[in-house]
C-alpha cells in the first residue's frame, strides 16, 4: 500500500488573507454608503443598487459559463462592481439603463479582457463612460435629495459642480451639506461621512493603499486652490472621495509599484481638476481615472523599485536604455 506526500515548491505556508476576503471586505466598506444613499435619495436608490448588483452578478455567471471559465462569483468582485456602478449613477436612472451599465461593466470591460485580474479599465467607471456616451440624458441628471425615504418622485437639480460649471451663483451648498451628502448628485458619491468610514476600514485592513488616494486628493486640492476655488469644497464636491478611495485604488487597474501608485494618484488629481475646469463635463473623476488606467503598465515599468545591491534605480536604467526591444 503506497502513500503519498504533498510535494510543492516552497514556501510551505501562506498568509490567511485571500482575494475573495479582500473583495468582501470592500463590500462591507461600501454598505454604509449604500444605506446613506437610500436615506438621502429614497427607495429609487435602493432599486438602482439592487438592479446593478443583480445584473453584474448574473452577467459574471453567464459570461463565465459562455467562456467555459470557472464561475467565481463567490470572490465578491462582481458585487463590488455592481455597488460601485450604482454609486456613480443618479437614483433616477431607469432600470434598463442600469442593466446596460452592468452588462457593459462585467462583460465588455472585465470578462472580454480575461476576467478578474486582466481588465485594463475599472469596470464600473468604464460602464459609466459607456452610459455617458449612449444615454447622457439619464446619467447626467443629478437627483435632489428627498424629504422622506418612501418618496418615489426623483426630482433633478443642479449639483454643486453643475452650479460651479454653469456659473449659477445662487445655487450654493454648505460644507456640512456636502459632507453629509444632502446635496444633489449620484446616489453613492454624496455622503462623505460614510465613504470615509468605509475608507478607514479598508485602510485599517490594508486593502486600500494610501499611496494612491492621498496624492490624488492633495493634488486635486492644490490645483483647485490655484484655479481660485475653495480646496475643501472641491474635495467634498462630486465623486472625488468615492473615486480616490474606492475607484482609483482598484487593485487590478492601479499600479503595483510604490512610486507608480503615487504618480498614478497625482495624475488622477491633475486630470480631475483640469477636466472640471476646462472639460465639457462638470465632473472629471471618472475620465481621469480611466485615462490613468491606460498608463498603469507604463507607470509600473517606469517606477520599478530599486533592485537590492544596484546603485542606480531600475527607473534610470529604463530611461537610459534605447527604445524598443524591451518586450523581447
Amino acid at each position, binding site marked *: 500500500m503506497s502513500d*503519498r506526500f504533498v510535494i510543492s515548491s*516552497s514556501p510551505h505556508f501562506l498568509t490567511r488573507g485571500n482575494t475573495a476576503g479582500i473583495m468582501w471586505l470592500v463590500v462591507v466598506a461600501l454598505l454604509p454608503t449604500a444605506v446613506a444613499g437610500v436615506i438621502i435619495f429614497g427607495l429609487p436608490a435602493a432599486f438602482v443598487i439592487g438592479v446593478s448588483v443583480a445584473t453584474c452578478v448574473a452577467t459574471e455567471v453567464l459570461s463565465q459559463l459562455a467562456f467555459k471559465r470557472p464561475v467565481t462569483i463567490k470572490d465578491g468582485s462582481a458585487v463590488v462592481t455592481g455597488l460601485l456602478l450604482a454609486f456613480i449613477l443618479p437614483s433616477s436612472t431607469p432600470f434598463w439603463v442600469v442593466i446596460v451599465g452592468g452588462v457593459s461593466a462585467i462583460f465588455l470591460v472585465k470578462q472580454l479582457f480575461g476576467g478578474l*485580474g486582466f481588465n485594463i479599465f475599472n469596470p464600473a467607471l468604464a460602464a459609466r463612460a459607456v452610459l455617458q456616451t449612449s444615454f447622457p440624458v439619464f446619467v447626467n441628471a443629478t437627483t435632489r435629495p428627498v424629504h422622506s425615504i418612501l418618496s418615489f418622485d426623483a426630482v433633478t437639480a443642479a449639483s454643486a459642480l453643475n452650479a460651479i460649471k454653469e456659473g449659477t451663483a445662487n445655487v450654493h451648498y454648505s460644507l456640512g451639506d456636502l459632507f453629509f451628502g444632502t446635496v444633489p448628485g449620484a446616489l453613492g458619491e454624496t455622503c462623505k461621512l460614510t465613504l470615509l468610514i468605509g475608507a478607514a476600514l479598508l485602510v485599517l485592513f490594508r486593502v486600500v493603499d494610501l499611496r494612491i488616494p492621498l496624492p490624488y486628493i492633495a493634488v486635486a486640492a492644490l490645483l483647485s486652490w490655484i484655479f481660485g476655488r475653495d480646496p475643501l469644497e472641491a474635495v467634498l464636491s462630486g465623486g472625488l472621495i468615492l473615486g480616490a478611495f474606492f475607484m482609483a485604488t482598484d487593485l487590478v487597474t492601479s499600479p503595483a509599484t510604490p512610486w507608480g501608485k503615487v504618480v498614478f494618484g497625482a495624475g488622477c488629481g491633475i486630470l480631475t481638476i483640469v477636466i472640471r475646469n476646462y472639460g465639457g463635463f462638470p465632473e472629471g473623476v471618472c475620465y481621469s481615472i480611466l485615462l490613468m488606467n491606460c498608463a498603469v503598465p507604463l507607470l*509600473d515599468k517606469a517606477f520599478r523599485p530599486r533592485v537590492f545591491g544596484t546603485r542606480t534605480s531600475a527607473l534610470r536604467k529604463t530611461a537610459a536604455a534605447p527604445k524598443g526591444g524591451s518586450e523581447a
Partner: protein
Amino acid sequence: MFGRKSFRGGVHPPEHKHLTQNKPIVTLPTPLRVVIPLSQHTGSPCRAIVAVGDEVNEGQKIGESTGFVSAPVHASIAGTVVAVESRPHPVLAFPVPSVVIESKPDATAATAAWTKNIDWRTLTAESIKDKIKEAGIVGMGGAAFPTHVKLSPPPGKTIRALLVNGAECEPYLTTDHRLMLERSDEILEGVLILLKALDIKTAVIGIEKNKTDAADLLREKIRRKEAAGEIAGDESVRVATLKVKYPQGAEKQLIKALLGREVPSGGLPFEVGVVVQNVGTAFAVYEAVVKDKPLIERVVTVSGDAVAEPANVLVRIGTSFRDLLAFAGGVTGSDGAAAAGVEVPGAEAQGVEVSSAKTAGPAEGAAPAEKPRAGYKMIMGGPMMGLAQYTLDAPVIKGTSGFLVLKQGDTKPSVACVKCGACVDRCPAGLMPYQLGNLSERNDFAACAEFNVKDCMECGVCSFVCPSARPLVHLIKYAKLNLAKQKK
C-alpha cells in the same frame, strides 16, 4: 528607512518556535545504518574512496573533494560499507551517489570519544583553514557552501569584519537558538578561531530580538572571556540585536541590517569586506579545530503541527528522515503512524513535482487519479525555503537545519493575480515578483531576465503574502531553470 538593524521589505510570519525553543538538544541513538551522499554541498561532488566491504571508523574520510569548491564527507558511524550507489537525496530531485554504512548491532565500542583539546592559538591561519577543509565543514544554515572557500577571499579583497549569523528567521527552526544557549562557549571559541583564520579583529553576532536569552548569555560569556584575556584587547566580539523579520538571516539582508551596506547585485559579501558564518558553522569549526572532529553530526529541529513530540535532535549525518521522525514520536493523527512507516515510490513522486511546475495549486499538483490520502508535507529546512520531501528514505545531510511535517489542510486555491502589489512592497530584493510570475507563466524568460530574476534568492516572501496564492517562487525557479538551460 526602517532603522539600522533591518532591511527593506520582508514579513513576519507566525513563528511556531514555541514547539521546540525550550527543549534541550537530545542525542539520537547511533543509527544502525546511514546513507551518506557524496554531494552535500554547493560545488563539485566528492569521489568515493571506500568500496563495498570496507570497514570504516567513525570520522574516517569516505569521500574526497574533487575541486576547490567542494568538501570531503566522512563516515558518521563505525561499520561496514554495504553499498556505494545512487540513493534518494533531500535536496536534489534525483538519486545521487551515496555511501551506505551499516554498523554491527553488537559493536559496543563504535562511538569515538573526540576528547582531544588542541590549543588553536598555536596554529597558523593556513593550518586552521586546512583543518576546516579536511573536516568537511560547510555552511550550516542550509546553503551548505564550503566554509574554507568563504574563508579565502580573492586577492585584492580586504576583509574587515566577520558577521556571525544567529538570526534564525525561519519559522519553526530552533537549532541555532538551542546551540547558542547550550554551546555558547564553543561557539565563541569558534568565532575567535574564525577571526584568526581570517586574520581580522572584529566579529558581530547578529541575533533576532525573539532570542534575547541567547543574546544575553553570549554577551555575558563575551564579558567573561574579555576579563580572562581570552579575547585580546584589540579584538572586538559583540552581539547585535536584530528586528524579528523574515528573511533577516539571509546573508545580504543580514549585512544590510548590521552594517548598512548592500552587497552588489550578483556579488559576494567579500565585496563589502565581510564574511558571514552561521553560529552552527562556528560550532562545527570549534569541533574540527580543537577536537579534530569532522562534520559527522549536527543539530536538527524536528517539528511541525503533525509531529508527535517536536524536538531538537543531535543527529548523525546520513540518518534517514524515517529514523529521525520515529525518534520524535512519529506523526500524530489516526493514520499518522501509517504515514511515517510507508514507502513512497520515488519515481512517481518526482513525476508529481514536474507536473506541478505548470499547475497553479500546490495541493492539486499531487492528485493524479485519487486525492492523496495523507495530506502531509515533509519538509527539509524551514517552511519558507525548505524543500518538500518525496520519501522518508532521504538522509539528514550537512545542511539539514530542520525536518518538518505539516498537515496540509490550509492550502488555499491559487487564483488570478489582482496586481495588489503586496509582493512588490515586501520583496527584500527589490523585485516585482508578480511580474516575474506572469512572464514565467508565458515562458517569456528573456523578459524575466530583464526584470532581474537572477537577483531573487527564493526567500518565499512573495508567495507568502500573495492573497491570490500564486506559486510565485515556483514560477521564478522555473524561469531560472530555463534561463540556465538556454545558457548551456
